[in-house]
């Protein structure tokens, strides 16, 4: 009998992380797309680090940074009573960092493509900067938001190394899909490993298909065949 709880845990983790990433990544991407600050290159480099670092390196430093004996980890324990290591909350923190480039980069590209000419038009029509963002930038960047959300979600769903380092393998708390597959293989339960692995493969393919299919179709097409 296969245990489905890792699947639900992974979906839960991916969903929560993606929501947090939208909240953190949108302003960050906007700043990166518009700012001429000298801190921009260094910020871009930090955001992109998870793309090149082995997940174990990221996981290792997070373990050191977030454990209850550290400043941040200790503060978290005092405020919430729980630990950031070997817990679901810790996984969310790790996933947000790990998937940050997958959220920020598509959004940054989309935001850079919104010409300031349209923002000026919005402003002279009486729209405040926040209003312009909501009603000009967001609709202009729909494809960027879709790609960022889908990629962040799918990337979080498949993470392994970081989770292993900081979360371990606690059923219902930190045993996510990829950890469960790893364990099934270790215990030579290939049938269960197959079911989960094939499911993840199919899901990831579907997600990428959605992104690429939506890229093909212009979202600004309003008829007018003529």
């Amino acid at each position: 009998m296969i245990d489905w709880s890792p699947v639900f845990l992974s979906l839960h983790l991916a969903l929560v992380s993606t929501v947090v990433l939208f909240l953190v990544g949108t302003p960050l991407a906007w700043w990166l797309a518009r700012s001429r600050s000298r801190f921009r290159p260094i910020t871009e480099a930090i955001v992109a680090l998870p793309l090149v670092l082995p997940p174990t390196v990221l996981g290792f430093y997070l373990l050191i940074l977030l454990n209850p004996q550290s400043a941040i980890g200790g503060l978290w324990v005092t405020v919430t009573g729980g630990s950031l290591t070997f817990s679901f909350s810790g996984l969310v923190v790790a996933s947000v960092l790990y998937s940050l480039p997958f959220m920020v980069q598509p959004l940054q590209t989309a935001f850079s493509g919104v010409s300031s000419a349209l923002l000026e038009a919005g402003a002279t029509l009486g729209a405040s900067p926040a209003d312009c963002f909501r009603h000009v930038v967001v609709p202009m960047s729909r494809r960027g938001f879709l790609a960022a959300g889908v990629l962040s979600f799918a990337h979080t769903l498949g993470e392994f190394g970081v989770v292993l380092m900081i979360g371990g393998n606690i059923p219902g708390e930190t045993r996510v899909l990829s950890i469960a597959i790893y364990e099934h293989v270790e215990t030579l339960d290939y049938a269960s490993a197959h079911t989960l692995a094939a499911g993840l493969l199919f899901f990831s393919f579907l997600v990428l298909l959605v992104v690429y299919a939506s890229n093909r179709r212009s979202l600004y097409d309003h008829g007018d065949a003529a």
Partner: protein
Amino acid sequence: MTLEVDIRVSRGDFSLSVKSELEGSGILGVYGPSGSGKTSLLRSIAGLEKNVSGSIIFAGEHWLDTQAGVFVPAHRRAVGFVFQDARLFPFTDVAGNLDFADSRSRDAHSSITRERVIEALDLSPLLHRGVAGLSGGERQRVAMGRVLLSRPAVLLMDEPLSALDQQRKTQLLPYISRLAGEFGLPVVYVSHQLDELAAIANTLLVLDAGDVIAQDSISTVLQRLDISVFDRHNAAVSVFDGEVLVQNHRLKTTMLGMGEQRLTVPQVQAEVGARLRLQFAAKDIALAMAMPESISIRNRFPGHVMEVQEDSESAYADVLVDIGAGVLRARITREALQSLGIEPQCSIIALVKSVSIEEALPLA
């Protein structure tokens, strides 16, 4: 409208300095060659130009006061801006573009309604079309409609016709006069085409190399022989109010009245009694010392010479001729001027080779 502008804009090797009170209703034309600072002036008024210092006061409201540290952001200034490139929102259709402005209207008590705007600019066939499929002229009409629905207190237009061909331009000009007339909106209209401004503006401000060199009623400014930019661009014109008197459907001509003068032109589509703006290019006026007999030019106005100015840098001379109904500006060769002995006070006949006619607000 009173708009007091006292600003300096400097960017690299360009600097603009304007101190001027833009007053009155109707259309204020701002003329200047490319790079004279017209667009910077308009963008400063709208709050889009960041490198600006000085003060801008609109109807008692301080939009800019560098000394007091006041800079009202663009979205809180009651200006409408029509850009050279229409800047329509591509993620929605024409109706969606109008809604964007309508829902952010600055003046709840405005007499500008969606229905009137759609009617005045003939937008109803376009409402459900996407922005990408519109022609250049249609785009600018939508942009104008969108701006009107934000109910601005003043309308700024930055060369809105410059991307269009001559035919589309001629089609759009009456719409612009109508905006100013029908909706009672003051318009500041920037262009480097003098004929475009002469067709619609009531007041004219001339910018050259970042300085205001003239500002007065359009007919007065157009008569000034000391404004060399007009001649440098071979653009000098004079303007008159005209009235449709008789339509001759057999010969396809229209007789127009211009004070006591009469002129006959190829048929104009307008009712008898309609008031139109007549524009004469200085280079299309010929001068004769006596009334020529047997000549194909039918529009001949007797008058007397007011002022003559020879341009020693070129082959040409400018001559102002009082024809009773107003002052006509002619540009002839210096050789002709000297051999005919044309000088102030002498009687003369002005021969008009062509005239361009627009629907516009009356000059006075």
